[in-house]
């Protein structure tokens, strides 16, 4: 009897490991940032762009603004491009093209982010620099635009694979009946397929956004990392993950600096969790 109960308890406890782990991470970040937040004004932390750790000035504006800027610009690229490619592959391409492309996406999503960063450094940064010069903007090429392009290519295979699997869940006979009403194929996609899959598409967009905003290495290698508030896409920026990666190891001796970085990690985690929350809501209602 006793052992039975013990076994049950153990199993329950063990099964709850993901729950404990999540809360351990969440509360570790929360409490470390609470320490840091004591005696500081939150509005100033968020809206000031003064960043002088040695004096104790921590204005996070440049960092979260950079993060959103880079993510939003890459979303402007990967959402339309991803949707167009997924529709093409699931509704227009023949089986031969599908059979070639699908493994290709698998390989691409298995490639480490430093490799994407290296590619951005080798190809995209010089390209953006030349483009800037052509347009009469002086830029080193290390910029928000470069980071967005690299991020888009990283996120696209993920997003396309998700969208295709969602489109394929729509019964073939529904597509047939829309076509039989005299719709062109694109009208079928636009008026029925996309509305039908709306929630799944939103879910995959937010999952991709979560990946994009948390991506560290690839972005860091091409974004320039300067402490200025970026204006145009050709300006360098300093997103939160890059800030953490660059500064966390070195500034451990100044405890308020460590606190500041933990606070930024908390913010980053919170943003990603909000994206995930939206994803879950959208997805659960879909199915």
């Amino acid at each position, binding site marked *: 009897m006793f052992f039975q109960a013990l076994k049950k308890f153990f*199993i329950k406890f*063990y*099964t*709850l*490991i*993901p*729950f404990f*782990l*999540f809360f*351990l*991470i969440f509360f*570790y970040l929360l409490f470390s940032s609470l320490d840091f937040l004591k005696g500081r004004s939150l509005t100033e932390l968020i809206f000031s762009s003064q960043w002088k750790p040695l004096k104790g000035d921590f204005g996070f504006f440049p960092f979260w603004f950079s993060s959103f800027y880079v993510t939003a610009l890459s979303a402007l690229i990967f959402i*339309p*491009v991803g949707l*167009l*490619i997924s*529709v*093409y592959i699931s509704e*227009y391409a023949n089986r031969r093209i599908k059979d070639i492309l699908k*493994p290709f996406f*698998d*390989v*691409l999503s*298995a*490639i*480490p*982010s*430093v*490799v994407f*960063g*290296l*590619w951005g*450094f*080798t*190809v995209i940064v010089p390209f953006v620099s030349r483009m800037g010069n052509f347009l009469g903007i002086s830029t080193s090429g290390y910029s928000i635009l470069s980071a967005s*392009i690299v991020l888009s*290519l990283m996120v696209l295979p993920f997003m396309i694979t998700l969208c295709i699997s969602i489109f394929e869940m729509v019964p073939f006979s529904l597509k047939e009946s829309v076509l039989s009403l005299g719709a*062109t*194929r*694109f*009208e079928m996609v636009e008026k029925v397929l996309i509305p039908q899959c709306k929630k799944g598409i939103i879910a995959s967009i937010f999952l991709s956004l979560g990946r994009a*905003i*948390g*991506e*560290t*290495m690839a972005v860091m290698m091409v974004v320039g990392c300067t402490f200025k508030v970026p204006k145009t896409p050709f300006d360098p920026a300093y997103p939160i*993950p890059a800030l*953490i*990666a660059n500064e*966390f*190891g070195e500034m451990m001796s100044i405890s308020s600096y460590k606190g500041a*970085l*933990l606070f930024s*990690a908390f913010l*980053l*985690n919170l943003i*990603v*969790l909000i994206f*995930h929350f939206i994803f*879950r809501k959208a997805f659960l209602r879909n199915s």
Partner: protein
Amino acid sequence: MERIKREKLFVLLMKLSLAIFLLLTFSLFTSIFFKGISFLSFEMVFSKPSRGFYMGGGGGIFPSIIGSLVLASSSTAIAFLLSLPLSIFISLYSRSTFSNFVRNFVDLLWGIPSIVYGIFGFFIMIYLGLKASLLAGIITLSFVVFPLILRSLDELFQNVPFSLKEASLSLGLSKFQMAVKVFLKAIAPGMLSAILISFGRAIGDSASILFTAGFSDNFPISLFSPTSSLPLVVFYLYSSPDEEVSGRAYAASLILIAIAVFISIISRRIGKRIYGK
């Protein structure tokens, strides 16, 4: 006619998007291949960095390759051993509300960026009284891989047909026997590909081990000393003004790409075998 034109316009846009996407990936592979291949010599792959390695002296990245293999395989093994019983409990023992509750948190863990795991791993490392070392790197990477592998195992269990469950229970097997004898056999190939994919993720992840695994020129002999790894070789060497040195970043990247290609080919083979039957 208006409608047909619209159709054609959008098909054109689709083809254009696909073309740009393929062009960019093509440039990814070729740029790294051509820069890396000239540095990818026998010496590069199979020797230690010699003195003056970072100034363009000789030697190779063998310790990083070994370091990465050790980091990735141990963390994948730990994560797998932790998540296998967990996935069995989730899918076989618990009532569905409870399992879905746990699944929520697996998904949330899965979404946490690897840089945050890096910070958390650093905290655990300090807590355990460790320094940046192979062990700390393995622990941190295990956190990264854990939700990944747990999620795919859970999916595999959920895809086991219900009829198999009924059949094995009607044979008089206990739930535990069913789990071990029937289910594990049924999902074995899928499990192998889940392990491979997690291994691939672990070997390429760099943000998480940035603060925990350290950096070294030596082979990972001790759990408590820093280790070298392929992604960090790329990260620390790529921007060197010396072309001899930055070339090593390309060589290391090429090895990482080769691993990624190899893993996806193998796991696709395994996948085909499952669906082929």
